[in-house]
């Protein structure tokens, strides 16, 4: 399968009166990520499934991916916490070209597990807001390799 790990786009900062799960994207975050999706489109990427965390900034980021989605989206609560084996199994069963939209540090941890088999080096992986990691292989620990790490600026220039 091809798996696209996506960190949510730029969201409003944390504030006491706003629960973390409810932080929406900023206008800039929304516009920038829409341009990134056009970059993915120009690369010929099409998705048959988008899984996303239930938190608002991930929901809104996933919604922008709809432009290249040919199948369905689904909320995946496992993307809003530390990744585990059950999440990895569900990703593997989700389709042939799947995007998973979530949060740091869990996206780096998920990437590390899928590529190296453990989370040990997750802290060394950089995952900017709006960044996309393009993986291929079997969704299992050490079952995937990274084809490309696409930073937001690069995607917007495509």
């Amino acid at each position: 399968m091809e798996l696209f790990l996506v960190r949510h786009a730029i969201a409003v900062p944390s504030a006491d009166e706003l629960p973390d799960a409810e932080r929406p994207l900023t206008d800039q975050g929304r516009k920038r990520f829409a341009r990134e999706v056009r970059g993915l489109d120009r690369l010929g990427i099409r998705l048959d499934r988008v899984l996303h965390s239930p938190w608002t900034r991930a929901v809104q980021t996933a919604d922008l991916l709809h432009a290249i989605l040919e199948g369905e989206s689904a909320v995946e609560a496992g993307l809003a916490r530390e990744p585990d084996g059950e999440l990895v199994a569900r990703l593997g069963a989700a389709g042939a070209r799947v995007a998973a939209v979530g949060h740091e540090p869990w996206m780096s941890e998920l990437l590390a597990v899928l590529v190296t088999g453990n989370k040990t080096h997750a802290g060394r992986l950089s995952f900017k807001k709006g960044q996309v990691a393009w993986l291929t292989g079997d969704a299992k620990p050490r079952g995937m390799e990274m084809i490309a790490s696409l930073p937001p600026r690069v995607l917007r220039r495509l």
Partner: protein
Amino acid sequence: MIESTPWLTDLETRVARVHERAEPEDVHQLRVASRRLAAWLRLGGLHVLRDDLRWLRRVAGAVRDIDVVLEVEGDPTWSRWLRSERRVRHQTLHEALASERTAGLLLALRSLPPVARDKATERLSVLAGKALAAGDALEGAPDDPERFHALRRKVRVLRYGLEWLGEKTGAFREFQEVSGLAADRAMSLRLLAAYPQVDELAARKSELEAEFAQQRHAGLAAWTGLRDRVREMR
């Protein structure tokens, strides 16, 4: 701004109740709340979460279909089969409601910001356009059941959209009631086709087919009465 409450609160209540007992009315209202929230997402321009709501409706719909048919059909053997089938489907629904997907869906809906009224009003005209297109398609082929169901869905979405904006929808309800009778017959026919002893109910099947056709035409007539009001919304 348009908040997702009170329908989100209603959905949460129905999910909890159906998870425990699956009373027919709660299953029905769970689907209604889910549809209304899907219309709210449309007004907000969101595509995501509608697929999750559709999934929830599909699983609950499998139970609801049987409840509708049990209300109107009297054959004791068929009813026994339907009740046994309901127990199986209820178990699937029970598992779906206990799943992380349902919990995630409710959290995601609770966390979303309200929908801006001006944007919702703009999108309403898109929904009206879709209903009109479905109406035109049905008028071009009045005997096509799929086109009938498509119109029914589009009109329902439009009606819920109007209600989110606080508009009156009496004429829409009339269409929905008439076309709902046809949909109930279609449901009976589908479940009858799945019934292993369908051959024993051949006469009832013929009756249902005739009633379905008759009520579809009544639905089309009700649509003709509603069409001009929908045109004004474009």
